[in-house]
């Protein structure tokens, strides 16, 4: 018998709020976290809006722990606050038998926001207009003055796990993966594998990311991946709608406490659901495009279902990657159709990115939390902003209104730039 892995805590910091119940209610109400960008002056960019985390104060979450983490980058702060919620819910602080060497961390954390203003100074001062090249001596002179070693290191993608390890005395396995938009789904999948194998009893797992900084926005604008509906920002993210024109850049964190079942039972922990399957594949196709027949996505979903030892017919709901780009939604639909066959039309599929925007590396963890809540309340969050059916997207997307449903097994997809596909399968906990 393999070791079973359950969820005993969850927390998030999202563009729609900072606690589980409040945000969940807003998601069922069809709210939106999207607004004009305020973090920097984006008024002339092709896309001038985003899904920012609002009114966030790390000190309020960390209290006495805050001084040790005061240098944390914006996204690491999100992770710490989300993890605090998850850890508190799991009541692991009350477990005096907890073995620190068996508590690990696996995050799918992005790189921290570039220190752009201080980065731009040497870039501008170091440019030699006459020679049309960078004068690296001049650049260095200004860079030594304007860049800070602490801010630079706090951008490294492994900083979230570093901070989390010190905050929770998690001395066991430590990993961070950065597989673009699939990262936190992959992190949770791999963390599940570590517990199953016996390398840890408890894993703090999820993701955090903020690419709402000038170069992040620039990069996505240049890829023409973002919606440009500057005049109707709250309806800009339109997954599976025929008029969709790209995703909305978001930020935030989602963190779960994963725990070996017996360990959780021994201490009478709250059990919120079970992680039963994980699939990871590569498209191995193109850097710029998803495989046109959804080969990698199909294999990831199939892999998760096989890993769980259930059948395709058991899947009750699919939380889609559903970014609202033309390409993703069409091919994700195709992949679901090819894998599930005739039954595809009967499976509800929805994308909360319509309300939360796309949290990039953090998206998968936040979405998995919505899946756990859907299981708990037996209700499916809607795909909002769905008005114009697309013949290429012909599934049941739970348009605009939440839906009561009998749910036991839920599948969650995350696909990353470059063709990285990760799928998780969760189930209502049954002893």
């Amino acid at each position, binding site marked *: 018998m*393999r070791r079973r892995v359950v969820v005993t805590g969850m927390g998030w910091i999202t563009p729609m709020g900072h606690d589980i119940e409040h945000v969940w209610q807003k998601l069922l109400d069809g709210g939106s976290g999207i607004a004009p960008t305020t973090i*920097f*002056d984006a*008024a*002339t*960019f092709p896309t001038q809006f985003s899904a920012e985390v609002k009114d966030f104060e790390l000190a309020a979450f960390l209290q006495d722990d805050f001084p*040790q983490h005061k240098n944390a980058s914006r996204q690491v702060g999100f992770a710490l606050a989300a993890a605090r919620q998850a850890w508190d819910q799991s009541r692991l602080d009350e477990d005096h038998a907890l073995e*620190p060497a068996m508590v690990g961390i696996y995050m799918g954390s992005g*790189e921290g926001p570039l220190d752009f*203003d201080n980065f731009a*100074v040497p*870039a*501008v001062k*170091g*440019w030699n207009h006459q020679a*049309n090249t960078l004068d*690296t*001596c001049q650049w*260095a*002179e200004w*860079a*030594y003055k304007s860049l800070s070693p602490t801010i630079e290191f706090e*951008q*490294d*993608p*492994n900083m979230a*796990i*570093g901070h989390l*390890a*010190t905050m929770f005395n*998690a*001395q*066991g*396995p*430590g*990993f*961070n*993966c*950065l*597989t*673009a938009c699939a990262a936190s789904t992959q992190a949770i999948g*791999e963390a599940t594998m570590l517990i199953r*194998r016996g390398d840890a009893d408890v894993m703090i797992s999820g993701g955090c990311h903020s690419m709402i900084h000038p170069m992040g926005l*620039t*990069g996505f*604008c*240049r*890829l*023409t991946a973002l919606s440009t509906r500057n005049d109707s920002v709250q309806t800009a993210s339109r997954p599976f709608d025929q008029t969709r024109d790209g995703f909305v850049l978001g930020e935030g964190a989602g963190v779960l406490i994963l725990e070996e079942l017996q360990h959780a039972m021994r201490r009478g922990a709250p059990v919120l659901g079970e992680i039963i399957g994980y699939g990871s*594949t*590569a498209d*191995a196709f*193109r*850097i*710029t495009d998803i495989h046109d027949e959804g*080969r990698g996505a199909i*294999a990831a979903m199939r*892999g998760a279902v096989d890993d769980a030892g259930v059948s395709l017919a058991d899947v009750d709901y699919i939380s889609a990657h559903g970014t609202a780009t033309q390409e993703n939604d069409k091919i994700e639909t195709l992949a679901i159709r090819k894998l599930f066959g005739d039954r595809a039309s009967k499976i509800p599929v929805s994308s909360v990115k319509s309300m939360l925007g796309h949290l990039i590396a953090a998206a998968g963890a936040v979405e998995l939390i919505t899946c756990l809540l859907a299981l708990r309340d037996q209700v499916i969050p809607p795909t909002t902003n769905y008005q114009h059916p697309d013949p290429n997207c012909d599934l049941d997307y739970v348009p605009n209104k939440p839906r009561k449903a009998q749910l036991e097994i839920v599948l969650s997809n995350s696909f990353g*730039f*470059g063709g990285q596909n990760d799928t998780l399968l969760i189930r209502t906990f049954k002893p």
Partner: protein
Amino acid sequence: MTERRVVVTGLGAVGPLGIGLPTTFDALLQGRSGIARIQAFDPSGFDAQIAGQVPDLKIRDFVPRSYRKSAKVMAREITLAIAAAFEAVKDAGIKTRCMVECGAAQPPVDVDSTRLGVNIGAGLICADLTELAGALATSVENEAFSYKEWGREGINNLTPLWLLKYLPNMLTCHVTIVHDAQGPANTITCGEASSHLSIGEAFRTIARGAMDVGIAGGAESKISPMGLIRQSLPGRLATDYNDRPDQACRPFDSERTGMVISEGGGLLILEELQRAQSRDAYIYAELVGFASANDTHDWNTAPDPQGQALALAIRKALAEASLQPEQVDLVVATGNGLPEHDLSEARALHAALGKHAARVPVMATKGALGNNGAGSGAIDLALACQAMRRGVVPPSSNTASPDPKCGLNVVARQPLETGINTILSVSYALSGGQNAALLLRRWQQ
């Protein structure tokens, strides 16, 4: 639940001492240094002006003709990873799509693409400053950068695919495409520990049956103005050796003052044992233990003086392999030449290996190769596999007067001829607190 056994059947490396693992190994045996004054840009404005640079790397030598045009969306790190992957796959004698299309192997492809996975450690990829600064400098008002100008016009000076050069997962993605590897794929980003964590995770992925062959390791380049200054600002670099670069990095030496940046990539082919046996592959070693551990001490200011997390990782790996410390024949240390970090690492080895720590030969390569970040661990591990095969350990450069406080038996001055059956290889992130240990054993029927 029984796990499948996993062996190493291919080694690939590119680094400052050349393309290919045997080239690097032989250069180390001869005591050559790969450290020199930086050529990639004028380093005169920096306190440290030296690095370990990879010479003459041409992407065309490592990808099918049809893929050459993709070079324009490749950061240096991606090129390094692709080259190391090619070398590793070639060494393993596996006919992936890349090898067949490049003419390096006769068709047909002999690996099931859906059972071939890739797991490559990566660092933060610094943007090409000449490209980015040139674009930013077009958006200036009153001698300062202007967001309004940038949003309106400036951003168009960057190519549409600009972002895709710098996503850390692109090392893995390009390698999956070139070799048609459709199995599990991941990118671990834990600083210098990335290589070990990637190899360890790929080991587990094969062991549990999710793939049969893995391309695993890491690659990174720190040789750019931004890469250099990010190490210079916290005072990590050896700054007194700009006129004698080959002596700058001094692992575990009494006179060590700091590290030297470099670039490179190391990738190993990991393979399920029966698959390797059925094709009569040369088996370098079996992976028998792996563990990682977090430093929960305040790693922001300095490493844990006692190296407790690294010691924990080593103990866990030994326990998994059912090995006693005395059975370790070679330790592959990180040895960056940093005063506090080297001491912390040495203390971890003493804590985990007991009295054996002072006796067991220690291999350290940073004196000649520098520290490239995410790729260094895999290069070291590949070199250690070669040392086991050849029965000789290359000497560490510049460990002229071993620090008695470290108290390690670092192989220095001369190569050490010795039979090796068990290798312990360790690594840790310079900041962030991740530690990892891997154990390899000589393959025996």
